[in-house]
């Protein structure tokens, strides 16, 4: 079939809206979509515009979930919507995570802030086939204790993997680890070999996490990162998300560190 795009969204209803943390809401949409964890959609609020959003639900579910922070025009308009209101979606777009490259390995999953959003469907997928993977470490850092997303999921996942949480600065409501997410690496005794890593989070975090991963000898082709760019069109035309030879919307948003070595990706 010829690939084509008319940029028209499909209209779907919001089934449920939940507050995840201050400024972040979870929108559950009445729509079944085949996709790969790590892929994104273009989300429309008609009259406000369109933005790329990574899907945070699992493909097997009969809805799609999006966790969106209120930062700009479209997200502000989205936050004003109520259950039953209609939004538009296009996609899915991009590559998503490559499970064959993670299978059989000990996994280091690093999430910062909203970085847990793309990791969630990946983790759900991994847990469906838990025995296919070795040890799993989830390192999850937030600015403060109120920023942690999906607390119920975290409780469940903790039974099947090593979960480490940290907040950037001390806070009376928090009894756990304090410090940036990279500080956690020193506390963990990782297996000496067969490691693969996935990093999702704010751009500033990547460089420091990669340094830590090098310390524990994760090779460049086994470090995967989900990058954030302004993917406007989703089909490799508009040039907003270009990264050297790559289009983040088509060739990404997930890249191995090896792929990006010669790009100004930071």
């Amino acid at each position, binding site marked *: 079939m*010829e*690939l*084509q*795009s*008319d*940029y*028209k*969204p499909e*209209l779907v209803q919001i089934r449920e809206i939940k507050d995840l943390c201050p400024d972040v809401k979870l929108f559950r949409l009445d729509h079944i979509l085949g996709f790969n964890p790590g892929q994104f959609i273009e989300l*429309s609020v*008609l*009259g*406000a*515009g*369109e933005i790329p959003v990574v899907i945070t639900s699992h493909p097997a579910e009969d809805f799609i979930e999006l966790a969106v*922070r209120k*930062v*700009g025009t479209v*997200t502000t308009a989205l936050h004003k919507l109520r259950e039953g209101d*209609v939004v*538009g979606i296009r996609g899915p777009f991009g590559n998503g995570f490559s499970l064959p490259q993670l299978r059989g390995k000990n996994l280091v999953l690093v999430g910062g802030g909203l970085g847990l959003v793309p990791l969630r469907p990946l983790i759900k997928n991994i847990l469906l086939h838990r025995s296919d993977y070795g040890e799993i470490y989830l390192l999850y850092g937030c600015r403060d204790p109120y920023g942690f997303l999906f607390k119920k999921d975290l409780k469940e996942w903790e039974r099947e993997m090593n979960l480490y949480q940290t907040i950037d600065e001390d806070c009376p409501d928090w009894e756990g680890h304090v410090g940036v997410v990279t500080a956690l690496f020193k506390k963990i005794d990782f297996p000496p070999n067969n490691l693969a890593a996935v990093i999702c989070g*704010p*751009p500033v975090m990547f460089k420091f996490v990669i340094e830590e991963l090098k310390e524990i000898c994760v090779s460049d082709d086994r470090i995967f990162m989900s990058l*954030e*760019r*302004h993917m*406007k*069109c989703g*089909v*490799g*035309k*508009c*040039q*907003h998300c*270009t990264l*050297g*030879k790559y289009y983040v919307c088509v060739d990404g948003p997930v890249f191995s560190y090896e792929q990006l070595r010669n790009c*100004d990706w930071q």
Partner: protein
Amino acid sequence: MDKLLLPKTEVSKLVKSLQERFSVIAPVERKGQKVVFRRLESYEEPCLDLDYTLSILPPQKIGILPCWQELFGFKVESPNLLSETEGREQVVLFGVQITDLLALKRLDKIMESPVKDVPYWKVRERVIIMGVDYPAHPKAFQPPIEAKEGLFDLFLDDVGEDYQILIGSDKGRDVISRIPLRRTAESPEKGPPLVDPILADVEKLKSAVELSKDSKLWDEMAELCIGCGICTWVCPLCYCFDVCDKINIRGEGSRERVWDSCLLRDFARIGNDINFRESLRERFYNWYYHKFVRMPEEYGFLGCTGCGRCSAYCPAGINIKKNLVRLVKELEEKT
């Protein structure tokens, strides 16, 4: 086969007869200085003066990929998309110069693969392309062009007193079939086109831009740039776009594609005020990188056809050809 000739004095008659069947977009003189392409009124004649000055915008950015293009209409209350109004007119894009024809051919390819851009083709399919042979602009540096016939539906080739009509497609043949033309068996005299070698070697330019990323040359070249984006607006192969919603007081809206420019500060900015190409040098380099590295990589051709507009209209006087020559020279010195 007989050659078809149209005396230059008959061009306005040709245009008149085209206007009976089509909407015609053609070059007109504006304030005696610059030529602009726009829809001709019924009483107007195109300006095909031999003292042709390069049109500010390439004709395809008037007739095919305009500044604002509606992707679809919608209603905000009880949201739904509006169905399209079909049956738009056929348009003749008249008087397109050769480097713009080449650029349009490439733009077609970009909008066709790997993903077909449906809104582009909805317009493009209704446009008949008529090229005209003009004298080259002083800032132009036309590459050698093979298979010129694939670039147009019709072309008026300058052969002295007459234009020889070249037919590039069935659509073109059909358009011209109703127009009385002189036939001749003689081969009209026609010298070879003036070409410049700088754009001929795609691989060399690609290396020159790709391998010079950290060169001081880019600091020097970008230092002149004021980041206004004019080079991108006037370029026939710049097609970066943004997407915006417009709404009116009745709650009806449209989603529109609007030109954007990678030279502008916010082009690679995302929420939380993170900007992936904060410095003008990065944006300046990226403009060249797209044209001379990414596009050849993706499609096998350059994003420049040497029309010379970016140099002619740059308020800072940046000359793209001179920059390319400098980059190639540096590459040759290194290797």
